[in-house]
Every structure is written in C-alpha cells, then in structure tokens.
C-alpha cells in the first residue's frame, strides 16, 4: 500500500531552486533512502513533507489525502513522525517526559491546567523507551545524554503519535560507525513490525546500502536516479556524482 505520494514538488529560496520538481512514492513497511550531496535539497524536502515549509508547487499525499501546506501540528496528527538532522529534544525534561509530552500532544490532552502531567501516559512512554533501549535512562535529563542516546530518544518521540510515515533526516549523523548500523537495524526492525513507511537521508553509504529497500538520488533539487540498491549502485550518473566527476563537465 502506498503511504506517501510526492508529485512535482517545487521549492525555491530566492535564487536557489532547492527542490526542483521531484516525484516518488513510499509504501508501508518500506525503507526508502534519499541520498545526495550537501545542499541537494534533502532537508528542504523533509521540511515540506512535515509541514515546516510550504511548497511553491506540487502535491504531497498521505494515504491518499493531500497534506502539502498544512501546518506541522496537523500533519503530525495525521500520522507523520520526524527526526531532525540536528537532534531536537526538550532539554529541560527527562527522557520519559519527552516521550510523554509527545503522547500527551498526540492524545490532545495538552490543555490540562491542573492535573500533573508526570503520570500521564507514563506506561506507554516506558514501553516506547523499552523498545528503543532507553528505558534504563528514562529519568535522566535529556540535556546530559550522549548523542547516540539522544537519537534513540528522538526515535521514541517520533513513534509516539503512532505514525504511518516516519521521516528521518540523517538519523545516524555524528555517531560512531558501529552505533550507526545498530540504530538503523533497530529502526528497520521497529518500522517493519509496525508496517511504517520510512523515508530517510543518510551520508553513510554502508547504512544506506545495508538497510534501504529502495534508494532515490537527489542532486541540485532534482531526482537523478532511483531504484533498488543494486540498480542505484550501477547507475552511471550516480557513480559520476559520487566519484566527484561532475555531470556538468561531461556535457
């Protein structure tokens, strides 16, 4: 089943065409990697998908429903979870509270002015933390965690709204190589068991070729290749891009 359908998506910043008309689909339970050099437009694309940016044109459908241009909160409630290139967590809260806040938001209990939040959805939060291997650190401050642990917390937070689509912008950036593979394996395991569609970007090719079901390659805002890892690996333009020979020079 197709969870995400992106068609003719455009976004420019002044003179820079960051996303220049791209199309792709992600199916439930599938891990789709979006790769491309720095500045290719990957984060911009993610920011459009989760509502942080409004596209200049194009369509984004989530389970058949148009979501392009909706505010991020709305898109989150429709079932999109996201992690950020630079981890974003709530530093003044504990690990468990981070997840609880996401759960509270998901269940629309935010307006409560009186009952303490500390006990709300605590069990569900602990279950999520258990799943990502962070239960032991549930009551530590998020501000003091190691970077790899922070990424796990972000994963738990992103799963709190029971998403059908998970967007992960460089989930393993800044981690040690062994940790990277471990985190991606964990992500793949969780998302497959829940049948979540995953779109992720990544600069580490071991992670990409080791875990992605399909890969799309972005350069200067445009898709230049897509297919299975084998197909993409064999693609001439991709090889040129990654071997440093510019496609321009060939023209």
């Amino acid at each position, binding site marked *: 089943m197709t969870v995400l359908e992106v068609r003719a998506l455009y976004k420019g910043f002044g003179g820079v065409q960051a996303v220049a008309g791209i199309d792709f689909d992600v199916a439930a339970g599938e891990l789709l990697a979006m790769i491309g050099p720095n500045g290719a437009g990957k984060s911009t694309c993610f920011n459009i998908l*989760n*509502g*942080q940016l409004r596209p200049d044109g194009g369509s984004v459908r989530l389970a058949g429903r148009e979501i392009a241009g909706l*505010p*991020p*909160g*709305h898109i*989150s*409630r429709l079932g999109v*979870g*996201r992690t*950020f*290139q*630079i*981890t*974003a*967590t*709530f*530093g*003044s*809260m*504990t690990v468990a*509270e981070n997840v*609880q*806040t*996401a759960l*509270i*938001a*998901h269940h629309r*209990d*935010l*307006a*409560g*002015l*009186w*009952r*303490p*939040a*500390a006990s*709300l959805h605590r069990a569900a939060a602990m279950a999520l933390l258990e799943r990502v291997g962070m239960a032991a650190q549930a009551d530590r*401050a998020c*501000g003091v965690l190691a970077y790899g642990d922070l990424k796990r917390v972000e994963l738990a*937070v*992103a799963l*709190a*709204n029971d998403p059908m689509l998970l967007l992960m912008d460089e989930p393993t950036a800044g981690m040690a190589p062994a940790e990277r593979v471990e985190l991606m394996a964990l992500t793949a395991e969780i998302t497959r068991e829940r049948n979540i569609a995953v779109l992720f970007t990544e600069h580490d090719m071991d992670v990409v070729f080791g875990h992605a079901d399909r890969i799309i390659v972005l350069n200067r805002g445009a898709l230049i290749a897509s297919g299975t890892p084998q197909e993409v690996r064999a693609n001439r333009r991709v090889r040129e891009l990654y071997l440093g020979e510019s496609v321009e020079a060939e023209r």
Partner: protein
Amino acid sequence: MTGQIVVQFLTGLAGAASLFLVAAGLSIIFGVTRIVNFAHGSLYMLGAYIAYSLTERLAVGTIYGFWVSVVLAALAVALIGAAIEIAILRRIYRAPELFQLLATFGVVLVVQDAALWIWGPVDLMGPRAPGLDSSVEIMGQRLPEYDLALIVISPLVLGLLWLLFYRTRWGILVRAATQDREMVGALGRNQAWLFTSVFFVGAFLAGLGGAIQLPKGGADLLIDLNIIAAAFVIVVVGGMGSITGAFLAAILIGELQAFAVLLLPESTLVIMFLAMAVVLVVRPWGLLGRPVAEHAAGRAAEPLLRPPGRTQRMIWGAVIACLLTLPLIAEDFTLTLSIEIMILALFAASLHFIMGPGGMVSFGHAAYFGLGAYGAALLATKLDTPMELALLAAPAIAGAGALVFGWFCVRLSGVYLAMLTLAFAQIAWSVVFQWYELTGGEDGLLGIRRTPWADSRIVFYYLVLAACGVAIYAMRRMIFAPFGYAVRAGRDSRLRAEAIGIDTRRFEWMAFLIAGAMAGIAGGLYVYSKGSVFPDEMSIPRSVDGLVMVLLGGVQTLSGPLFGAAGFTWLHDAISRLEYWRFILGGTIIGLVLAFPEGLGGIWRQLEDWVRRRRAVARQAKP
C-alpha cells in the same frame, strides 16, 4: 500652510538626529556583544550633563568652544562606556544573557544617583549654541538655526560610520562578528579588545547624542529612561544591527512626533510606540532587519525542571506557617511591608511564568500590573464598584490587555519580543499619563477605600495572603500540568514541539494571557493596599523591578522569583529613605550579579545538589 509643513518637517529631521545617534550606538553594541544595554540611556544622559559642565567652562560664547565641548563630552562618555565594559560586563559574558541585562539595570541606577550627586536635582537649561542662536525664516515660518546644524549632523555621522565599517579593518571585524556568532568565539583574546572598542564607539555615539541635544532639551534626571525607550523603538523599527535602518527609523519617528505635536499634542507619546507596533506586525524584523534563523537544537541547554522535593515542601510549609502567624506578633509596619512583598511576589511569579517556562522575556510586564491597578481604581472611583467586584475585575481587565498585546508579541521572539512588550507597556503608560480627565494623569487616582470588613490591616493581610497564595500555587500547578509541558516544549525546541503537534504560538499566547491576568490580581490588591494609584505603577522602572526580582531570584527555579521579590522589596524599603538609595541598590545588583551569576535561587539549587551528592556518597560508603 505649506511653509508650516516644511518647517515642521525640518523640525522632525532635527529631532531625529539625537535619536539616530543613540539608536546607532545601541544597535552596534547589541550586534557584536548581544547585550541589550539598558544603560545606554544613562550614557546619553551623561553626555548631556558633561557637555553642560564643559560648555560652562570652555564655551563662553565662542563657536569653537561649544563644539569642542560637545566632542569632548562624547569622548568622556566613550571612556565611561569602555570602563563599564571592562569592569563589569567583561566578567559576565559567560553568564546567561539576561544577567548581562540585569547588570546594565544596576548601572542605570548607579548613574542616576551619580548624576544627582554631581549635578543636583534641578533640571539644567542647556546653553544656546554660539553662532547658531537665532532663527532663520523659511517660507514665512521661523526655524531655529541650531535645528539646521542638527539636520546636517545625522547624515554626516551616518557617512562617517559607513567609512568606519566598510573602510577599516575594525569595521570589517565588527560586521563579521555581527553576522556570524561563531566567528566571535574564534577571535580568542582579540574578542575582549573588540567588545571594549565596540562599547567605546557605542557609548561615544550615545554621549554625542546627549550633548548635541543640550541646547534644545537641556539635561535632567529622567532623560535616561525616556531616551532608552525611544532608542529601543528605533532599533527595532529599523532592524536590529542595521545602522541605515536606525537612520530611517529615526527620521520616521522624528517626523511622526513633529507632526503629532501639530495635530494632536496628547498623542506624542503614544504615536511612537504605535508606529513600532505597526511596523513590527508588517515587518517582524524591522525595516531593514533580517530574520533570525530558528535553531533546530533549541536554546542553550535548560536545566531539568523538577517538582519540589520533600525538603523544599517542608520549607514551604514552614514559610506558610510563619506567614499565617505573622499578624499575631508583628507590628503594623511589618504587616504593611509583608503585604507589599506578597503582592510583588505574585507580580514576579507572573512575570516568571512567561519568562521561565515560556522563555519570553518581557520588558513591559508592569503594563498588566498597571491595567489591573487602574482597572480596579477606575471602577472604584468612577462607578463606586465594591472592592470584591473590583478585585475580580482587575485580572479580567489585565487579561484582556494581555490577550491583545500578547497576540502581537508571540509573533516575534527573543529581543524583538522583549522590546515589543516594552512598547506596549509604554503605550498603556502614556494613555494613563496623558488622559488626564479619566485617570488624573500624574496626580493619580486617590481615596480608594477597602470594604468595611477588610478595612483592618490584619484582615486585609490575610486576604492578600490567600489571594497571592492561591494564585502562585495555581501557576505552579499549571507549570507541571500538560499545559506547562506544552509551553516548555515550545521554549526548549520549537521545531520538535511543532513536529509532535503542539501549536506553540497558541500556547505562548495562553501563557501571556495567564501571566497578564495574574499580574492584574497583584495590581488590584496593590491599589487597595495603598488606597491610590499613580502612572508609576505601569512605568518602565516597575517593569524593571519585576525583571530584577525574577533574575536575582533565578529564572531557572520556581521559588527563586518569590525570594527575589522578598529580598528586593525589603531592601528597597530599607534604603528608600536614604538620599542615594538608587546607588546602593544598583551597586548591590551589580555586586550580586558578579558574585552569583546564577541568581540567588541558584545558590539554593547548588546547595541541594551538594546535599544530594553527599548523601549518595554516604549511601555508597555503607557496606
């Protein structure tokens, strides 16, 4: 008619000159050091006073002497600015940003009393500028010659600043530092030198601004806060860090004021702040400013916020027990002071509510205190409303004000937000100040009496204790309820909060509303404790008092602001009968900031951490 318009236009340009100079200095200092220098108005005031003394000695009627005095005064102020940077601010660059603000408040107070001591309390009339002391005729209207000089000065200074910024190594460094914060860190030892020199230049401009307006406005002890409010407006309207923007904004404001005098003299104060509000709504980053990038990672790590532990709850129990028994043992004087402390503790707690969990610094929280106070007072004096009803109306009126002002404020963030709150507070203040028929202007509203059952001081004490206690407790509940988590989530990381479905702006708005209503309760109680109300209750110093209480107490703790309020109010009361109490207060603030850059509440937390660690060690040592 045309003549009048042309002359009024020229008057506006002349008025813009010193506004531009002060704002340019403020903007340069903020751009490089990220310090909102509240003491910038004090530097301007010193410029005026020093120029006064110098012209008395040097000018004696010569053109040369007058202008030499002006430049020397500006240089003297520049040295004072550099000295302030070296002696105070340099020691606290690593402290939280707001602490630097606090230190500059301290400087404002110290400079006020230093000026009082040196030049006395009487307003000084500026000398006429020799050679420019008559007026010229333009299209049948007269314009003072000195105004022509002022009109020439701002573009001249703008040109010189341009040369300084684009043609010198120093200027390149300053521009780079303004645009790229990382670069400042990479400067290493040169950073200290850069910051000091930036203060020197900024203070020079402030001093020059004060000196050149001397022949027009003279020197008095109030111009520091008046000009700082105007300078904030211009910097924000022009766009933070943009000198050309400040130039345009100064002209805009100067002209608006010049024509407002002509059309509607009562509106001069309001008009400037209204202009600012309008510009910020249309262009949130000012005329020539650029948007500040939102950081995904959020702000510098906030410490964990925990519900009070057992020790803390026991201490609170003891404090409440003491407060309950106080009327049995205390004298009238102590009760009166305690009433004031409790009211201001509620005021401080309400400010902390938006500053701490909400992460929105307000420079104008007195607006809501004042709206509550004037709301209750007007109901009581004009409509004979009973006290009970007036006290209930106070938070509603203040809350309504917060709802309107807050709608605009939450659209901005950081310093822009803070300055917009100041602008709104000044609008409210100037309405109260200038609408004599309704509010009595400077004379205030008097003779507000409590209901007979609450007339006794002891009964009123318990009423205040109950009202403030319940209000403060309610705010604590909210902070630990889902609402508080939502607000805090928006502060810690707006991106993350929005990505999980929190409408951060709406929660900020709600927090603004609640804080405003709570301040309104404090304002209403205050009116009935004093029996009167004056515009001072919503003026800048009142807002600053609140900030000092919160910041001294420690913005990162919940009880800190309450202790800050108690300490500040007590100290204020103890010294306010002395002639130079501002000096003592300012000195104390500076001393405390230098000694405890984490706030007094921070001491408590450090102590608690220490005890906890000791216990853990002890536990581990046991076999």
